[in-house]
């Protein structure tokens, strides 16, 4: 029997060798892989979003800030199962038991994390939940930093809004390191300078147990706050401009005439970027997206319409520079002119009589400019228009800028497959026809005319010295500029001036009105014209007469005449600008 017993010793030995080999396999050969799995079991990485940079106006007034917002969520495992407790929780936060179950069912963003029950709860609700924490240990109040656009719709097209990182953006190297589902800038300054504003997200490594409860924080990498931005926008002027537009669709762009800094960029109607701060709901989105007045359109950059008589500034300058007229050249205006059998009317049916350039600009005589058109070629005219920055984007930081159209013989052949007619030059010279411009182009044109021909790149970020960098200089004689400027002063100052409604007691303002005819509008007369057939109103202006500081372009969609609809708005903004100056020097 002894031998048979000894056999057991060998069997035991063999078993131990098998176990030894298995242990070797698990711990030595595959040890690294299992170590990784064990760490994966217990460690979870949680993104700590970086506080976004704050956006200030040029006077350091914050336009956007970060505020804590409170969400109530629940840890799945700790949610009570009985309907009574569920209903009690529901009463606490104003949800039905079914709604809670539904939300838990759908789950949260993180399959292991707590489920969000309610977003953006009031402070009272937070207090109520905190008070009952003992009874419902699964309930959590989460603090989320969210974006608060302090002035709501104000300058919303400039500031923009946030939205979740899109799938395309997630693949874009520009957004490398941005956590999935993060809120990033999706429009305006928030988008353009997102990289600067967003900072770098931090990481918190937490240890959890098998039920997902947090045991401890195993490591933390603090987020790096985004940089603050200072805009060139002046909050007070911006607000004045939006007030002055008064609910009509339109745009106001005011530039520092010498640097290209954008003081005002107003576009109405606007939208409230706060709606987007935590993800816009569908009904709000639908309402905004389907609004016929297109609140998302940044009219300052994106609406392109014929500039009307404001373009006469360029026509006059071109004619002077080309020697077609002198400032003293006179033409007779009899209310219309006949060219090749076609009658071209002046806006004033009875005519302006004997008119020199000054009067032609002050009273916006069309016939005077038709006379110029007879002598100037369309290509010469379009060269000046292009030199003053029309027909191409100004290059401001914001996306979606339109370029407008400066027609030429070549342009017409290319796009319409037709040759240019002289009659079309007559339309162009008074800013009608194919010609189209954006308000920001007109504001820059205005500043170039009064600052000695420097075409500065408009910009929104303060402290960027763009002077001369992007600015080409239009070669025009100072004498001709002086003639035009004087006439523009007359437009506002003279009793007969079309822009007299912009006249101010505080500061000397020069400008030019413009009215864009809307096709089909001729069928109607007087005040009965439905809004959609009413003319668009333009006014471009600068101030003061000596060493102009501010240049402005006002555009009111279907506003009627530039003199009545647009000029008063420019006046209000310019006066506000100079009132501020007075206050600050006191």
């Amino acid at each position, binding site marked *: *029997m*002894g031998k*048979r*017993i*000894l056999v*057991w*010793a060998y069997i*035991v*030995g063999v*078993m*131990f060798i*098998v*176990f*030894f080999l*298995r*242990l*070797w396999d*698990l*711990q*030595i050969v*595959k*040890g*690294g*892989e*299992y*170590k990784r*799995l*064990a*760490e994966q*079991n*217990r460690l979870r990485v949680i993104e700590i979003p970086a506080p976004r940079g704050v956006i200030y106006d040029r006077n350091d007034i914050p336009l956007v800030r970060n505020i804590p917002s409170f969400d109530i969520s629940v840890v799945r495992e700790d949610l009570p199962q009985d309907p009574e407790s569920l209903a009690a929780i529901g009463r606490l936060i104003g949800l039905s038991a079914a709604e809670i179950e539904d939300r838990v069912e759908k789950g949260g963003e993180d399959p292991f994390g707590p489920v969000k029950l309610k977003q953006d709860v009031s402070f009272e609700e937070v207090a109520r939940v905190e008070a009952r924490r003992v009874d419902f240990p699964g309930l959590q109040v989460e603090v989320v930093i969210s974006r608060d656009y302090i002035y709501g719709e104000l300058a919303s097209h400039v500031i923009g809004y946030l939205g979740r990182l899109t799938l395309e953006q997630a693949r874009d190297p520009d957004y490398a390191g941005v956590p999935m589902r993060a809120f990033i800038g999706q429009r305006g300054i928030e988008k353009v300078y997102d990289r600067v504003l967003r900072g770098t997200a931090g990481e918190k490594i937490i*240890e*959890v*147990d*098998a*039920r997902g*409860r947090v*045991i401890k924080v195993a490591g933390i990498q603090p987020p790096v706050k985004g940089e603050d931005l200072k805009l060139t926008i002046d909050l007070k002027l911006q607000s004045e401009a939006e007030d002055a537009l008064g609910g009509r669709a339109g745009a106001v762009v005011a530039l520092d005439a010498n640097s290209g800094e954008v003081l005002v960029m107003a576009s109405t109607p606007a939208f409230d970027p706060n709606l987007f701060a935590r993800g816009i709901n569908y009904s709000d989105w639908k309402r905004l997206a389907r609004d016929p007045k297109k609140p998302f359109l940044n009219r300052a950059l994106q609406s392109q319409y014929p500039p009307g008589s404001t373009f006469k500034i360029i026509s006059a300058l071109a004619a002077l520079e080309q020697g077609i007229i002198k400032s003293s050249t006179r033409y007779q205006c009899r209310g219309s002119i006949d060219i090749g059998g076609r009658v071209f009317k002046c806006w004033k049916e009875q005519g302006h009589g004997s008119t020199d350039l000054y009067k032609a600009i002050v009273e916006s005589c069309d016939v005077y400019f038709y006379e110029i058109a007879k002598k100037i070629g369309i290509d010469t005219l379009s060269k000046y228009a292009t030199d003053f920055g029309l027909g191409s984007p100004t290059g401001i930081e914001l996306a979606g800028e339109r370029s407008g159209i400066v027609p030429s013989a070549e342009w017409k052949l290319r796009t319409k497959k037709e040759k240019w007619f002289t009659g079309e030059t007559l339309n162009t010279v008074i800013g009608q026809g194919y010609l189209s411009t954006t308000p920001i182009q007109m504001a820059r044109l205005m500043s170039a005319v009064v600052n000695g021909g420097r075409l500065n790149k408009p910009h929104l970020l303060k402290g960027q010295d763009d002077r001369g960098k992007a600015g080409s200089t239009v070669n025009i004689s100072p004498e001709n500029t002086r003639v035009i400027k004087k006439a523009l002063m007359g437009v506002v100052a003279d009793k007969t001036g079309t822009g007299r409604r912009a006249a101010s007691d505080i500061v000397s303002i020069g400008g030019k009105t413009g009215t864009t005819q809307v096709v089909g509008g001729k069928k109607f007369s007087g005040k009965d014209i439905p809004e959609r057939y009413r003319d668009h109103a333009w006014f471009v202006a600068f101030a003061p007469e000596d060493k102009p500081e501010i240049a402005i372009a006002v555009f009111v969609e279907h506003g009627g005449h530039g003199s009545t609809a647009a000029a008063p708005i420019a006046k209000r903004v310019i006066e506000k600008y100079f009132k501020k100056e007075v206050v600050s020097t006191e």
Partner: protein
Amino acid sequence: MIDRRLLKNFDWGILFAVLAISLIGVMTIYSATRPVLDAEQQTYYLKQLYWICLGLICFFVVVSIDYRWFIKSAYVFFLIGIVLLILVLVAGRKGSGAQRWIPLGFMSFQPSEFFKIFFVMALSRYLSGIWRNEILGMMELTKIVLIFVLLPAILILKQPHLGTVMILLFILLSMTLTVGIRKKIVVVGLIIVLISLPFVGTILWGELKTYQKQRIIAFVNPYVDQQGEGYHIKQSKVSIGSGGFWGKGYLRGTQGPLRFLPEKHTDFIFSVFAEEWGFAGSILLFLLYLFVMLRGIDTAMKARDPAGSFLALGVTAMLAFYFFINVGMTLALLPVVGVPMPFMSYGGTALLSNFMAIGVLVNVRMRRYPLFY
């Protein structure tokens, strides 16, 4: 009581080995159940310490009585064991889906744990009675199974406790094989088992509880059901494997305390140990067990009479099977069977019966020489 001269032959080595394993067990239980979040009461390691003390007492009681008396009274013990097994079915306390405990007010115990020792005693007596250097025939084998195995197996399966029945069968097999079984029977038996396996398997499969089926499925493919039984095996492998060569260090294991590893202080105690002490520690632990088993086999060889040999062999087989089945399970070499690791796993009755088993070994070894007065 113990004669002074007997003490000369007292096997201190095996006692120290199992005490060392037991204390390692307490340490590992402490680590596995240490609270990580809030002030959870953690008393398992203390209870285990009490049980070890109780176990030592049992050990000395068993050692002090000449094993021949146990052989003489073996059938009485066997009957008492049967009665207890019936009692547990009638008045037992249910726990985790099985009726295994008899409450005794201050504590509860599992009769099936003690029954294994009684089973070894009864079998030793019977085998030593018929043993005449002859191998066992068909008639004898059938008689043994009918008398000693059938009833307790049915009673224990009723609880149900599959693991214990398996251990009983293994003990039976190891003891009868040692006596010797006719080659013809072994060969025919093997063939019958192999042929009938699919049929019996199908019938048994239908009889198995859902959790038992799951365990077998999970063993075949641990990744089928990550949250169910496969999860046990996978997490056990993760625990052991992540220990690497040197281990993560005592109280540095994460799988157990964070509850990724189920049954961490009972069936999967080795996984917790291997995570913290690594390959190096596990091999040392293995060596302790190897020592105990070899010592048991050595005792069986040196016993003064066949009854002592059978006793030593039976209890050694019991401990060895527990060890191999449990550790084989944690190493994912065997399916999950609810079998504790001897001396390591938390559990009072098992600890008592294990110490009694060691007591039997020391007893037989100590009395291997006839004493002359």
